[in-house]
């Protein structure tokens, strides 16, 4: 009898823990800062009755969070296009998309095709694009007029006046600045390791130039706004936003090419609100909403008219930063083969620990 009671208590506990998660009228979105503006969430709620709960994150954290729950806890995620294939193969955290539920005619065909190509596993597509942008330099041109490549971040005249984000982008960008081709070496681990190690040596040698390593867009914006740094590696959207405040600060595609990425919509494997997720995807790709989103984040959406669907200020900042040659010179991130991130992680640790 007593045993039975214990079992009953345990059973109620189990029921209580399995039935609490969100009802279908909430969408738990795992995304980047600035990708889910309040007013859009409000409009979405008025139209569909669905509440959007937003969690801000980055590529690594998205994978780690979903890995910890086997793809649960969120209904829709926004990892970059090159971070889906390997994560899905190794951790099985996503679920294929039903493209018939999405208005694919709204998309820029080349961006849609690129994301499909990167995220197709066993014939199933896992992602559709949302925003795209590039990584390059943000420069205060009044104070650093000649800073044009990642290697220039190490120029002694900027001692203590530059910042960097200690992630894989800085390694790859420095590799390109040194005349190597890191993306081309993705298939050859030994060659890639050689390039990354050379880039790391350079980054360790120029640590005196670095004021601090930034970790988020707000962090970086504050450093530039206050004039504490004059240049950094950066996402173009963050730089365009700063450009609207201070015309001296803008994005600068490095001479060795800006690095292009596409942030996607991808369904976590245990998504509990798949329908709501499709509704959100279609909603934010509507021209009027795409324009609001783009003006807010500073990035261009994957809508077929994405370049026009944004604020005039942003268009001005973009054309001030990018020439047609710069656009043609964009190096697109390719799917990361397994094993590379282990090498990069060790190298990044070495840079951080170097005195």
């Amino acid at each position, binding site marked *: 009898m007593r045993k039975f009671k214990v079992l009953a208590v345990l059973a109620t506990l189990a029921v209580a823990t399995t039935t609490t998660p969100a009802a279908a009228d909430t969408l738990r979105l795992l995304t980047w800062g600035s990708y889910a503006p309040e007013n859009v969430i409000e409009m979405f709620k008025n139209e569909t009755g669905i509440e959007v709960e937003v969690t801000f994150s980055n590529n*690594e*954290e998205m*994978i*780690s969070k979903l*890995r910890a729950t086997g793809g649960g806890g969120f209904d829709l995620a926004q990892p970059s296009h090159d971070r889906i294939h*390997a994560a899905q*193969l*190794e951790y099985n955290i996503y679920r294929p998309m039903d493209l018939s539920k999405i208005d694919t005619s709204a998309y820029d065909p080349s961006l849609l095709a690129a994301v499909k190509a990167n995220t197709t596993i066993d014939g199933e597509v896992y992602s559709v694009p949302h925003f795209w942008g590039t990584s390059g330099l943000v420069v205060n041109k009044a104070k650093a007029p000649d800073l044009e490549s990642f290697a220039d971040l190490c120029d002694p005249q900027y001692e*203590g006046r530059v910042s960097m984000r200690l*992630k894989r982008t800085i390694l790859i960008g420095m590799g390109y600045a040194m005349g190597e081709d890191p993306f081309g070496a993705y298939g050859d681990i030994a060659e890639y390791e050689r390039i990354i190690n050379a880039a790391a040596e350079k980054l360790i040698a120029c*640590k005196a130039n*670095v*004021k*601090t*390593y930034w970790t988020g867009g707000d962090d970086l914006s504050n450093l530039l706004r*206050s*004039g*504490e740094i004059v240049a950094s590696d950066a996402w173009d959207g963050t730089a365009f936003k700063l450009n609207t405040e201070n015309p001296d600060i803008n994005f600068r595609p490095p001479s060795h090419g800006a690095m292009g990425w596409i942030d996607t919509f991808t369904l976590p494997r245990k998504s509990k609100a798949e329908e709501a997720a499709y509704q959100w995807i279609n909603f934010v790709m509507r021209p009027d909403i795409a324009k609001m989103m783009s003006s807010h984040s500073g990035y261009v959406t994957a809508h077929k008219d994405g370049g026009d669907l944004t604020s005039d200020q942003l268009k001005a900042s973009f054309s001030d930063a990018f020439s047609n040659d710069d656009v043609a010179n964009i190096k697109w991130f390719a799917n990361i083969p*397994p*094993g590379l*991130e*282990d090498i990069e*992680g060790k190298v990044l*640790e*070495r840079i*951080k*620990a*170097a*005195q």
Partner: protein
Amino acid sequence: MNQRSIRRLTLFMLLAPFLLWIALLIVLPHAGIFTLSLREKVAPLVYTVGPGNYLDFFREPIYWNTLLRTASFSVLVTALTFLVGFPIAYYIAKIAGRRARGALFLGCLIPLWVSDLVRAYGWMILLRETGVVSSFLQWTGIVSVPVELLYNDATVVVGLVYTVVLFMIVPLVSTLDGMDNSLIEAGYNLGGNGLTVMRRIVIPYAMPGIVAGSIVVFMLTAGSYLTPILLGGKNSMWFTEQIYEQFITRFNWESGAAFGILLLLFTSLTVWLGLRLSGQSLASTVARNEA
């Protein structure tokens, strides 16, 4: 049911929440972490069992240097916290009047109502190059160019002392409060000066409080994450940051788990050493035996 079994049942019921807490939130997760730490990743999706993650820690100087750095800074912070906290605690417990005592204690508590993150950002606003302190120094003419006070080890130490000093003050106040003032008077009557009384009477009496405070402060410091990261800047690796990196950015849960276990062992060892050196036992810091 007889008297004895009722008493046993009562004891069991009273202990149950505590036992559940210990088992479900402390023992079980640590067992899980320990098992995970013994799993070696050979290739994606291929694992074996072995001590490789622990060996990696000793083979790679970056890792054990970071742990030693964290430990030595934590000891420094503990010592500084004692130096800052003891006079405050002594004043509150022995010198301040009854009403001032409450106000002072409250004054120490209030900063704790604000979260760690906000307090760290507070320091950043004060100390950054374009911040309050730098602007003030320029205004007074003491310096002519902006000074950067953030992003170095001294700032981390100051920030940590500020965050944890209360955990030193509280146990010190309660032990000193229980000390009979006539002991101090007797010390003076027998010809001791201020220093001798402090060294021979007050400190030995307060030892259990000092040890308790030091243990809490040391553990909190060694395990802190936000303050060293936000104030520390480009060179300051803290061991907790290393654990975070392993888990989150390198997807290497196995080695992150091993680091977690190592941090626990290392801090426990330090506390044990501290107890041995100070001649205290864990029991004496919890309750005073009036023998």
